[in-house]
C-alpha cells in the first residue's frame, strides 16, 4: 500500500457538561432600588419603626438592597388600609371590574417576566432556568386563572351565595417568593377580599416588585398591602383583631404557633406546611424516566420545596440499577452561579439553611447511612451544597423522618406494595407523594391509600393553577389552587 490512511477523527473540548462556556443572564435587565419602603394604601411609605434590614444575594453573600421592617404600628396601618379599602371600595366593586384588575396584573407580570426572574434568582439563589421557566410564568398563570373566576363565583358555588371574608393576612415563605404571593393574592382578590401580605424576610424583593406592578395597574389603594419584616411582623398580622383570615405557607412549627394564636377567634385559616414526601419506584416502572423524576423531585429549587420527594422508596429488585442511574444523573447536574443559564442547582437560600442542611448531613453519616455526593466543584463564595443521596437508610433514621429542606435524598428499599404504603404513610407529614409504575391499576391502588394531598403518578413536581394543592396531617389544611382555592376565601351563605 502506498500512503497511510489519515485519521480524520477530531476530539474537541465539549468534554464535560461542567466546562460549558459561561452563559450568564444579564443583571442590567433588572432594576433593584437601594431601599424599599412598605407598600401601604397604594403608596410606598417609610416604616414607623424607622428600621431597615438587608436582603442578601445568597450566591455572592453581597447585599442587594435594604427593606423596611414593619412593627406592630405599621401592621395596624396596613390592616386599617385594607379594612377601609374593603368596606369602601373593593366589596362594592363589581366582579367583572375585579377581574379586569387581576388580568391587568397578570399581563404586567408577563411583560416584566425577565426582570422578575432575574430578581428572583438574585434574591433567592434559585437558578435562572427555574425562575424564568417556572416561577414567573406559573405566577402569571395563577393571576390569569383566578381573574377568570372573579365574575363566575355563582358557577363555582351553584345555588349558594359566596361572600368575601374581609381582610386576609397572608404570610409566605422564601422558597417561591413571587409564586407564593400570586397563589395567595390572586384568589383573595377574585373573591373580593383585601390583602395584607408579608413576604419572607430573606426574599422580599419580587413581592415588592409585584407591589410596584400593582401600583402601576392602578388597583384601588389599600386593596393589596405588602409589608416586610421577620417573625414579629408575621405575629402582629396573625394577632391583629381586624383580620378575618390567615393564609400561611411555611414551616410546621410556625404553623402550630399560628394555630394556637388564632384558637378561640373567628379567624379562618389555611396552612400549607412542611412535608417529607415518599417517591415510590416499582420494578415495572419506566426506570430512566423515574430516575429523572426523582432528580426533579428532590433537586428542584435546591430541595427547598415543601412537596419535595425527599424519601425515595425503591423496590429491591431494581434498587441497584436505580441507584447507579441516580448517581450518573447527579454527575451531569451543574451546580453553581444561579444567574448562569446552564445552572441546574443554584445557591442554598441562606446561611442559616445551609447550616441546617449540613447538620443533617452529619446526622445521616452518624446514623450509619452511606452518603454519596456528586463530585462537582462548588463556588467558594456563597452558600452551596452538592446534591446528596443517602443509601442504607432506615425508617427510624432521623434523616428519613425530619424535613431537611435541601438537596438531600434518602433511599430505602421495599419488597411489597403493602409494605411501601405503610412506610410511606408512616410520617407526621402528608403533603405529596409520587408513584412510578407502568401498571395503571397499581397507580389507582396507591393513590387511594397514600395519605398525601397530592399524589403524582409517573411524574413529579407538576403544578397548575387549576389543580388544588394542600396537605394531610401536619402538612396543614385547606387547599390552594383550582376551584378548591376559592372556597378558602369565601363565606357560603
Amino acid at each position: 500500500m502506498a500512503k497511510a490512511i489519515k485519521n480524520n477523527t477530531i476530539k474537541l473540548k465539549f468534554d464535560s457538561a461542567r466546562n460549558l462556556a459561561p452563559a450568564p443572564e444579564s443583571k442590567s435587565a433588572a432594576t433593584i432600588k437601594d431601599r424599599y419602603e412598605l407598600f401601604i394604601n397604594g403608596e410606598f411609605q417609610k416604616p414607623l419603626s424607622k428600621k431597615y434590614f438587608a436582603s442578601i444575594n445568597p450566591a455572592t453573600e453581597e447585599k442587594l438592597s435594604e427593606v423596611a421592617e414593619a412593627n406592630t404600628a405599621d401592621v395596624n396601618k396596613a390592616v386599617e388600609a385594607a379594612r377601609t379599602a374593603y368596606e369602601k371600595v373593593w366589596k362594592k366593586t363589581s366582579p367583572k371590574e375585579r377581574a379586569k384588575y387581576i388580568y391587568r396584573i397578570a399581563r404586567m407580570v408577563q411583560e416584566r417576566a425577565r426582570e422578575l426572574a432575574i430578581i428572583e434568582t438574585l434574591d433567592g439563589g434559585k437558578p435562572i432556568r427555574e425562575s424564568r421557566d417556572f416561577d414567573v410564568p406559573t405566577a402569571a398563570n395563577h393571576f390569569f386563572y383566578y381573574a377568570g373566576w372573579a365574575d363566575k363565583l355563582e358557577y363555582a358555588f351553584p345555588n349558594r351565595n359566596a361572600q368575601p371574608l374581609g381582610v386576609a393576612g397572608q404570610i409566605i415563605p422564601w422558597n417561591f417568593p413571587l409564586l407564593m404571593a400570586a397563589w395567595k393574592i390572586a384568589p383573595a382578590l377574585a373573591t373580593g377580599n383585601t390583602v395584607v401580605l408579608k413576604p419572607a424576610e430573606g426574599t422580599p424583593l419580587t413581592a415588592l416588585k409585584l407591589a410596584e406592578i400593582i401600583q402601576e395597574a392602578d388597583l384601588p389603594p389599600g386593596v393589596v398591602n405588602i409589608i416586610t419584616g421577620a417573625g414579629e411582623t408575621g405575629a402582629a398580622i396573625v394577632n391583629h383583631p381586624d383580620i378575618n383570615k390567615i393564609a400561611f405557607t411555611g414551616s410546621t412549627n410556625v404553623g402550630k404557633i399560628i394555630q394556637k394564636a388564632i384558637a378561640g377567634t373567628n379567624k379562618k385559616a389555611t396552612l400549607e406546611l412542611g412535608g417529607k414526601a415518599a417517591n415510590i419506584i416499582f420494578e415495572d416502572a419506566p426506570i430512566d424516566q423515574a430516575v429523572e423524576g426523582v432528580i426533579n423531585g428532590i433537586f428542584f429549587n435546591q430541595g427547598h420545596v415543601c412537596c419535595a420527594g425527599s424519601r425515595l422508596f425503591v423496590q429491591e429488585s431494581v434498587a441497584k440499577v436505580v441507584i447507579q442511574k441516580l448517581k450518573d444523573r447527579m454527575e451531569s447536574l451543574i451546580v453553581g452561579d444561579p444567574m448562569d443559564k446552564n445552572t441546574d442547582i443554584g445557591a442554598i437560600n441562606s446561611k442559616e439553611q445551609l447550616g441546617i442542611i449540613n447538620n443533617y448531613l452529619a446526622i445521616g453519616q452518624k446514623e450509619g447511612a452511606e452518603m454519596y455526593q456528586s463530585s462537582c466543584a462548588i463556588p467558594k463564595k456563597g452558600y452551596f451544597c452538592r446534591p446528596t443521596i443517602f443509601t442504607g437508610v432506615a425508617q427510624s433514621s432521623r434523616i428519613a423522618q425530619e424535613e431537611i429542606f435541601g438537596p438531600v435524598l434518602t433511599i430505602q428499599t421495599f419488597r411489597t406494595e403493602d409494605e411501601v404504603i405503610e412506610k410511606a404513610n408512616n410520617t407526621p407529614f402528608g403533603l405529596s407523594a409520587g408513584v412510578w409504575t407502568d401498571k395503571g391499576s397499581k397507580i389507582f391502588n396507591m393513590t387511594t391509600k397514600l395519605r398525601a394531598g397530592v399524589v403524582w403518578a409517573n411524574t413529579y413536581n407538576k403544578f397548575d393553577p387549576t389543580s388544588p394543592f394542600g396537605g394531610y396531617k401536619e402538612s396543614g389544611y385547606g387547599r390552594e389552587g383550582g376551584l378548591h382555592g376559592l372556597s378558602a376565601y369565601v363565606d357560603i351563605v
Partner: protein
Amino acid sequence: MVVTKSIPDFSLSPHIDQVGVEERAKRFTTRSIKNETKINGLKLALNMIDLTTLEGKDTDGKVKQLCYKAQHLHDAYPGLPTVAAVCVYPSMVKVAKKALGNSGIKVASVSTAFPSGQAPRDVKIRDTKFAVSEGADEIDMVISRGKFHMGEYNFVYDEIAAVKEACGNARLKVILETGELVTYDKVRRASDIAMYAGADFIKTSTGKISPAATMPVTLVMLEAIRDFYYKTGKKIAMKPAGGISKAKLALHYLVMLNEVLGEEWMNNEWFRFGASSLANDILMQLMKQKTGVYQSADYFSVD
C-alpha cells in the same frame, strides 16, 4: 470452550414513559452553548457528519462532487475538519472509495434492500457482501420492521447477526426506522435486539420515512446503549439520521450525548449525524462566529 453470551427476552426490555422522555429531551435544548464551547461543538458536529446521497438518480459525477465536498467543506475557513463518512448506495461505493483516497473519510454503504428491507435474506447478504467487496468501510442495514411488528424478534435478531457476519471488518450500522416503529417502547426493544445481535452502531432512520430522527427517540436509544454498556462492557455507537438540518439542533444533540453517555462518546467513532444539509448550516454558523455577520447561503457550496 465457547463462551456464549446470554440473549435476553426482548419482550422484557424496559418500558419508556412517553411524557417523561419527551420532557427530558426538551430539557437538553435549554442548555445555552456559547463562545468556545459553541465553536468546538460546531466543528465536532461537522466531523461527525455522514454526508449522504441516496437517490435513484445518483450518478458517478454527483458522488464524486459530494466526495470532494466531504474533504473540502469550506476552504474559505482554514483548518476545518472533514466529515466522518460519505454514505451511498452499494453501486456507488467504488466511485466514492476512489474519490476519497487516503483522506481518512470512510465510505458507508446502505444495504439489505434499503430502505424497505423487503427482500429475502440471501439477497440482503449478497447486497452486503457486494458493498464490502467494493470497499465499503461501514454498512448501514435496515431491520425487517414487518417481522418486528409481528413479534418475531428471533427472525430480526438472526438477520442482523447474519448481516454482521457478512460485513467482515466493516462496521455495521443497524437502522431501526423508528418512524415505522412508532412507540418508544418498540424503539427500545429494537435497540436491544440490534445491540445483542452484533450492531456496532444503532441508527434511527433511513431518511425516507417521516418522522425521522427526533431528540426523544435518540434519547431512548442512547439510554439503551448506556444500559448495554453497563451490562456487557461493550460500547455501541449512535447515529441519528434525517431531520437534523440546523446547527443549533445538532448542538442540542451533542449536549444530550454528553450528558447521557459522556465524553468517551464525543467523537465520530461513536456518534454520527446522518445528514446532508446540516453541513452548510454549521458552516454558516462558524463563519458567523468568525466574522460576526451572516453570509448569504450562496457562499456555501450545494451538493
